[in-house]
C-alpha cells in the first residue's frame, strides 16, 4: 500500500525528516510515536501533500505510483486521508455542504455519479449515529465553535464518509477527555478492514489502548530509531523517550 524509502524533507531549509523507511501493507495499523519535535507531524503533512515542505530525497510509493506526483487534493481523491491534530474552522461554510463536496469530489474521480441529497443524508446520519453526534452537527459551520471533542469526531466522520485506503491520524488524542477518546477510537476501529491501513501518530500510548496497533515505530531526530510490536508502546509509557534517544545518539 505505502512504501517509504529514505524519505528526507525540510522546512525553510532545515532538515526535519532525515531518512525515513517504512512499509505499510493493506489492513495494517502502524503507530508512530516520538517526543515533541521528532518530525511526527511533518511526516503526516508530507504524506498528505501540504505546501511548505520540501522533499529533498527518497521516495514514497502509494498503490504502485509515485505519491509526490499527486497534488494534495488528488491524493485525497486517491484515498489518502489526514485526520488533523488541529481541525480548521471555516466560517460560514455549512458542515454538510463541505462533507458533500468532499464526497462528490472523490466520486467524480472514481467515475461515479454525484450522490444525491437523500442518499447522502441517509449515509451521513448512519455514520453520525456511530460517533454519537447530534443531528444539528450537520447544520453548523465547519468546526466553527466546536469543542475539542466535536472537532475530532468531525474528522472521523469525514473519514468514515470518504472511505479512504490510507488513514493518517495526526495526534488525534490531543485535547480529548477519556470519554471522547473512546468514542473516537470506536469510530476508527469500526473502519478497520483488511484493505484499509492506518498510520496513527501519537505522543502518548494511551490512544493505543483503544486503537491497538500491529506495529509501533519510534521517531527521534527525523529517523525511525526503533520498531516493534504493541509492547514497545507500553515500554515507552513506562520509561519515557530518553533511553531511546540516547541509544540512537
Amino acid at each position: 500500500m505505502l512504501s517509504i524509502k529514505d524519505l528526507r524533507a525540510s522546512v525553510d531549509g532545515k532538515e526535519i525528516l532525515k531518512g525515513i523507511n517504512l512499509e505499510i501493507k493493506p489492513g495494517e495499523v502502524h503507530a508512530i510515536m516520538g517526543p515533541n519535535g521528532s518530525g511526527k507531524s511533518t511526516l503526516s503533512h508530507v504524506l498528505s501533500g501540504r505546501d511548505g515542505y520540501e522533499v529533498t530525497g527518497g521516495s514514497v510509493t502509494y498503490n504502485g505510483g509515485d505519491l509526490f506526483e499527486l497534488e494534495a487534493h488528488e491524493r485525497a481523491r486517491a484515498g489518502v486521508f489526514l485526520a488533523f491534530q488541529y481541525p480548521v474552522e471555516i466560517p460560514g461554510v455549512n458542515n454538510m455542504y463541505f462533507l458533500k463536496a468532499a464526497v462528490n469530489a472523490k466520486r467524480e474521480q472514481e467515475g461515479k455519479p454525484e450522490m444525491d441529497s437523500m442518499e447522502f443524508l441517509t449515509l451521513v446520519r448512519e455514520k453520525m449515529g456511530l460517533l454519537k453526534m447530534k443531528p444539528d452537527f450537520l447544520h453548523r459551520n465547519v468546526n466553527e465553535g466546536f469543542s475539542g471533542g466535536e472537532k475530532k469526531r468531525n474528522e472521523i466522520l469525514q473519514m468514515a464518509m470518504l472511505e479512504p485506503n490510507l488513514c493518517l491520524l495526526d495526534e488525534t488524542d490531543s485535547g480529548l477527555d477519556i470519554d471522547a477518546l473512546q468514542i473516537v477510537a470506536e469510530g476508527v476501529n469500526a473502519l478497520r478492514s483488511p484493505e484499509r491501513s492506518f498510520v496513527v501518530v501519537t505522543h502518548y500510548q494511551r490512544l493505543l489502548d483503544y486503537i491497538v496497533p500491529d506495529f509501533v515505530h519510534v521517531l527521534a531526530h527525523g529517523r525511525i530509531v526503533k520498531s516493534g510490536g504493541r509492547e514497545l508502546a507500553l515500554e515507552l509509557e513506562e520509561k519515557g523517550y530518553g533511553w531511546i534517544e540516547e541509544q540512537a545518539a
Partner: protein
Amino acid sequence: MSSTAQELDHLIGKEYKEGFVTDIEAETFDPGLDEDVIRRLSAIKQEPEWLLEWRLEAFRHWQTMVGPDWAKLDVPPIDYQALSYYSAPKSKKDGPKSLDEVDPKLLETYEKLGIPLEERAALAGVAVDAVFDSVSVATTFKDKLNEAGVIFCSFSEAVREHPELVRQYLGTVVPQGDNFFAALNSAVFSDGSFIYIPKGTRCPMELSTYFRINAANTGQFERTLIVADEGSYVSYLEGCTAPRRDENQLHAAVVELVALDNAQIKYSTVQNWYPGDENGKGGIYNFVTKRAECRGVNSKVSWTQVETGSAITWKYPSCVLKGDNSVGEFYSVALSTLKQQADTGTKMIHIGKNTSSTIISKGISAMRGSNAYRGLVKVTKGADNARNYTQCDSLLMGDRCAAHTFPYMEVANPTAQVEHEATTSKISDDQLFYCTSRGISEEDAVSMIVNGFCKEVIKELPMEFAVEAQKLLGVSLEGSVG
C-alpha cells in the same frame, strides 16, 4: 507562505465572460460637454422645459465643483470633454412599442448575458428593464404590472407619461448639487428606471434593471427613481456589465429611493462592470450616488450589494431615516482583485425617533486589489433611541492586496446605542489545505471559503440573484490563488 504568494502571481486568469461587444449602429454624440449638448439631449428625449432648466442648473453648478479626493482611491484625471454624453442604438429612436420591434441584435445581446427579454423565456416573477448605453430598449411584463397599478418604465418614458410624479420626487433625495458626480449626472443623465408603487400595494413581482454599456468612449449616466407609497412593498434588482475595452469608461449614476409611511423597499445590486486587466488597464469607473429616504413612519429600506466589477468603485448607498421607527439596512460584499480599487460603504442618518440601522460589510481583497469600507453613522439631536449595529469584516488573499476601514460616528443624542465590530482575516494556508486534503480543488476551496465569509450578505439577496452572486464570486476569484 512565499510559495503561495508566487503561485498567486502565477495563476492569473480571471475570465470576464461578459466582455463582448455588440456590433450595432448607434447614434452617438460627438465628444464634448456644454449647454448645447444638454439642450440636444433634452430635445431628443422630448423633455419638458422645467427638466431642461433643471439639467442646466445642475450643469452650471457642476462647473464650479471639483471631484472628490478624500477616498482611498487613485483616480487618474478624467477629461470630461473627451467623452460622449449620448449613445443610442439607431433602431430605437422612438422607442419600440413591443418586443417585436426591438432590434434582434439587442435581444441577442441580453440573451447572451443570460437575461432573455421574451416573456415566455424570462425568469418567472421578474420584470426587466433593459438599458443599453443611454437608452432603455425594453421593459418586460408591463401589462401584468399595470394591472396592479405599478409603474415600471424607463426614466425617459416616465418623464413623458408621468411628469407630475417625476417632478414631485426628482432630486428630493439627492439634490442636483449634492456632489461632483451627482451634479454631472443631474446635468446629463440619459436613462434608467422609474418605479412607483401605489398605496397599499405589494408589487406582484421582482423588478429589475439590467444596465449594459456597449459603445466606446461613452459615459453612462443612469438615473433611477423609486417611490414606494404608503404601505407598499417592492423588491428591485439591478445588474450591470460592459465589454472588455482598453480605455476606461465612466459610469456615474444617481439612484433615489423614497419610502413613505409603512412602505418597504428592498434594493439589490450585483455589479459586474468590466474590471480592467491585471495591470489596471481598462475597466469602468463606477462613481455612484445612491440614497434612500425613509420619509414615512415605520418605513424600511434595505440595500444589498455584491460588487465584483469595475476598475474603481466609489459608492455609498445611504439611508436618511426621517420617519419615526424607520429602519435602514446595508449589506455589502465588495471584491477587489486584479488591480481593482473600491471605496464603498454607507451613511445612516438617524433623524426620526426610534430609528434603527444595520450595516454588514464584507470586503475581499486579492491580487493587487484595494478595498476600503467607509461608513458614517450619524445620530441627530432629535433622534431619540436610535440604534445602529455595524459589522465590517475584511478578508485578504495573498500579500499584495490591501483592506482599510474608515468608520465615522457622529452622535448628538445621549439615548443612542451605536455598536461597531470589525475583523480582518486572511484565507489561511491552513484553511486551503484542510479543504484540499479532503479532495476539494484549491479553486473550489477558495470559492467555498469566500462564499462562507459572505454568507450573511448573500442570504439577503433574492434567490435567483444569490445563486448568480455566488457563481460570480467564484469566477471573479478564479486564478487568484494557485
